[in-house]
Every structure is written in structure tokens, then in C-alpha cells.
């Protein structure tokens, strides 16, 4: 090796030849040997460990244990793979000493430290909480499975020494920009939805009257839908179908436009026989959607956002790849309403992709752009 290490060469020159030879056969670095078990405290009979190939060392108390560790390091260049501390009536003094030791010698802090006991008492679990260097409480029962336990603890300790970017969080911080966007969005929603409802109230009344006259049943149709963060709310529409239409859905499965493919379920039927004549008109003109302005005013949803989905559809989208769509606000109009409107065959995957796209980059300006493009899409559409 060409590395320049003056101190080491001085030492080597000073040391007798024999020592130099022995040093070369030993590993240079001190390594933790998972087959070395150091018992501290009263002697425990461990034939099952010896037979598993473990080398057991025994130390009466803390001081002897430290000497043993030092000897293991200087002679064998090994660290014990696990320290098993026998719990006794006065743990405090011993554990305090260990705490100090681990604070001083950080290289030993990665050695799994187990508390050995006959039965687990609340005092002991409290001790583990206090002395965080204790990795686990074990009983005689645990000894046969010691290897896998120690391996897990070792893996954790090694990874945790240089933790990758991990996230543990309770409440998420709202960033400033998002808050401003949320306020703008809500303000816009209230003003626009409120004004619109006032202006079109005569039309709403007229539609309500015609629905009442044409067929038996209520004016509005309220379905439970999943909005932002999967919040379930009642979604209002003008009723465009005969009463009890939901119950007849099963009979229409064969007409489902999206029935092919294993993907998420969407129901969409062309020329559904349950639709009333005036209902068909409302649907073609999208007038049946007007009561959603009440939902917007209530705050269930927004003017712009991802379409709030019926629960049977929504519950098929809670996968790692697609759940992102639920993090965005729900809305009346959105990306998929203004994209490719007029084509019947937009696939479910394409819709979800647009939803996720919106979820990733929505802001007030983007919302305004979607709003501006909505009327054009409405004019282009035909019987979708």
C-alpha cells in the first residue's frame, strides 16, 4: 500500500518482528463478531447457544465486562456481537454505568444490548424507555431465536447510524404558498358559486318544477361521493332518471362502456333506458350538474378539481400509484372535462393520469386556466 501513515510505520519499526507478523494475520479493523455473546451478571447456562456455534463470554459485573470487551478488542480485534445483561433487583447502578460507557465509546453503541429476565415486569419496560440503549427484553424462551433477533437489531442499528432520508411525522406543516392558494380558491368559489346561484335561481326553479311534473320523485338526486382526502359527502344533481334508478343498475351491467379490462371500475352507459325525457335534455346540456354549486358553497368541493367519484369507483383507486388523485380538491370542472371532451373512449387510466397531473401542480392560476377552457369544452361536447 502506498498510503502515507507515518505513525503506523514508527510503531512497526519499534515493535518486535513476531508482533508484526501476528498483526498481519489479524483483521486490521476491530469488527463486531455476531458469534460472540457477552453475558453480564449472574451466570446463565446456555448449552443451546454453544451448540449453535456461539462463543459465550461471561462477566460478573460492569467492570469485568468492560475489561472483557477491551481484551477482545486488543487481542482478537473483535467486538462482541451482542451483550446480554442479566436483570437483577438493583438494575439502576449497572445500567447507568452502561449508559455512560455507550456515550463515551460510540463505536460500541452499535452492539445490540439485551436485557435478560425471567419474566417481563412493568418496571423493566419502563427501564427500556429510560435507557434507550437497551434494544430488547429477552427471556429463556427467546434464546433459540436469538440469532434472527440480533440480526434484525444489528441491521436496524447499522442503517440507523447513517439514516437515509426517512420521514416520521405527525402533523404536516402547511407551507405559505399553499395557504394563499387555498384562500384564493375558496374565496373565488364562494363569490362565483354564490353569484351564479342568485343569477340562475329562476332557471333552477323552472327546472325543479318540470322535474316534479314529469315523473314521481324528488327534485334532487343526492349520491355519496368521495372528495378531497376521501371525504365522503352528499353530491347534488337534478334528478334525470326515474326514481329507484340505482336499484336497476345491476340489470344494466352488460351495457357498461368500461366493462372490458381489469382496471378500475367506471360505469357509463350510452342511451340509458332509465333516463327520463327531460332528464336526457338536462344531461345533454349539463344543466343537471347545476345543483353542485350548492356543494361548492358548502365547501364539499370546489369549482375546479378532480371529479368527486362514487364510492364504488373511488375505493378502487386507493393504490400506491393512484391515491395521489385524492389529495387534490374535488371539483365540478377539471382537467379531464376540458381534455378530449367529445370523445367517448377516454380510458379510465387516462382519466386517473389527468387527475394525478392536476393533483401535482394545481394552483390558483392553473384553476383559472381550466375555468377559462371549460366553456369551449362544453360547446364541443356531444352526448358524453
Amino acid at each position, binding site marked *: 500500500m502506498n498510503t502515507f501513515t507515518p505513525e503506523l510505520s514508527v510503531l512497526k519499526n519499534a515493535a518486535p518482528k513476531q508482533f508484526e507478523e501476528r498483526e498481519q494475520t489479524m483483521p486490521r479493523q476491530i469488527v463486531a463478531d455476531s458469534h460472540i455473546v457477552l453475558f453480564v451478571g449472574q451466570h446463565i447456562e446456555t448449552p443451546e447457544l454453544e451448540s449453535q456455534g456461539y462463543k459465550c463470554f461471561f462477566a460478573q459485573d460492569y467492570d469485568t465486562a468492560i475489561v472483557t470487551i477491551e481484551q477482545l478488542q486488543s487481542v482478537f480485534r473483535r467486538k462482541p456481537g451482542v451483550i446480554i445483561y442479566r436483570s437483577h433487583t438493583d438494575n439502576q447502578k449497572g445500567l447507568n454505568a452502561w449508559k455512560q460507557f455507550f456515550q463515551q465509546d460510540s463505536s460500541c453503541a452499535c452492539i445490540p444490548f439485551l436485557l435478560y429476565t425471567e419474566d*417481563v415486569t*412493568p418496571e423493566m*419496560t*419502563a427501564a*427500556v*424507555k*429510560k435507557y*434507550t440503549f437497551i*434494544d*430488547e*427484553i*429477552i*427471556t429463556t424462551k*427467546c434464546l433459540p*431465536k436469538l440469532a*434472527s*433477533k440480533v440480526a*434484525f437489531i444489528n*441491521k*436496524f442499528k447499522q*442503517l*440507523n447510524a447513517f*439514516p*437515509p432520508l*426517512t*420521514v*416520521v*411525522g*405527525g*402533523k*404536516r406543516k402547511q407551507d405559505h404558498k399553499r395557504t394563499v392558494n387555498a384562500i384564493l380558491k375558496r374565496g373565488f368559489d364562494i363569490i362565483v358559486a354564490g353569484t351564479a346561484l342568485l343569477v340562475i335561481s329562476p332557471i333552477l326553479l323552472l327546472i325543479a318544477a318540470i322535474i316534479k311534473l314529469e315523473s314521481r320523485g324528488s327534485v334532487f338526486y343526492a349520491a355519496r361521493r*368521495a372528495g378531497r*382526502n*376521501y371525504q*365522503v359527502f352528499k353530491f347534488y344533481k337534478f334528478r334525470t332518471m326515474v326514481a329507484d334508478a340505482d336499484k336497476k343498475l345491476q340489470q344494466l351491467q352488460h351495457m357498461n362502456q368500461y366493462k372490458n379490462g381489469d382496471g*378500475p371500475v367506471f360505469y357509463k352507459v350510452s342511451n340509458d333506458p332509465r333516463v327520463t325525457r327531460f332528464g336526457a335534455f338536462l344531461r345533454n346540456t349539463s344543466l343537471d350538474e347545476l345543483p353542485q354549486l350548492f356543494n361548492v358553497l358548502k365547501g364539499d368541493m370546489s369549482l375546479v378539481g378532480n371529479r368527486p367519484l362514487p*364510492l364504488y369507483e373511488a*375505493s*378502487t*383507486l*386507493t*393504490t*400506491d400509484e*393512484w*391515491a*395521489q388523485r*385524492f*389529495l387534490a380538491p374535488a371539483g365540478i370542472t377539471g382537467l379531464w372535462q376540458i381534455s378530449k371532451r367529445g370523445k367517448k373512449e377516454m380510458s379510465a387510466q387516462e382519466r386517473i393520469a389527468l387527475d394525478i397531473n392536476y393533483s401535482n401542480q394545481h394552483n390558483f392560476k392553473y384553476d383559472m386556466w381550466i375555468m377559462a377552457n371549460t366553456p369551449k369544452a362544453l360547446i364541443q361536447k356531444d352526448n358524453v
Partner: protein
Amino acid sequence: MKKTVLIIDDSLPIRYLLEVMLNRTYNVVSACDGLAAMAWLKNGNIPDLVITDLQMPNINGWELIEFMTESNLYQHIPLMVLSGVHDTKESFAHIRPGNIKTIIKKPFDPVILLDTIDHVLKAQHVPAFS
């Protein structure tokens, strides 16, 4: 006092969704993998319920479940698996079922999940950790 639910999932949207939905009723802590969860547990935290994914980086769900069910410190904590892994039953072949209360597959119905969490937490008498 609000009960603490630990959510372990490497998918940020799933974690976020569960956080928001559970926050009203429970004290929610979420971890992006088994390593982050272990680090949190090692600080002396004991949750009332753990909901974990299986396929995760660093320390995965199987390893974590095996350790927790064998551990004298954590074996009393009820576990729920929320995973997109198929044939989940077989993937537990080598693990003692222990405290795994239920296995829910993704995609899941969040409404049912909330009910299940409520049910598990009420049915289970969790010994106090003093």
C-alpha cells in the same frame, strides 16, 4: 386521551391520506419505512395500533412484523397489514400470525378501513405502558 396509530407505508399519498382521515379521531404518526418506524419506537414510543405496508425499502414489513411479534416490548400491540402485495396469506408463511388483526389489500375502501381500526382499538385491551 387520543389513541396513537403508527402508519408505515412508503407511498406518500397513502400515508398522507390516512393521516388526514385518522387525524380527527387519533393521534397519527407516520413513517416511510420500517427503519423510520423502528427509530421512532426506539425513542420509547409505544403506539396503540400499527398499520403497516409490506414492501418497503430498508426494513420491510415482514421483518418488522416478525420482530414485533417476537418482542417482549411490542408483542401486545395490535397490527394491521395494508398492502398491495398479492397472495398476502402466503407471504406470512414463515411468520407467527401473532397480533396481526387483519390484512387489508390495496386498493382498499377507506370507509371500511376506518371502521376496522375503530373495531380493533375497541376490542383490544391494550396493557398500559408505564
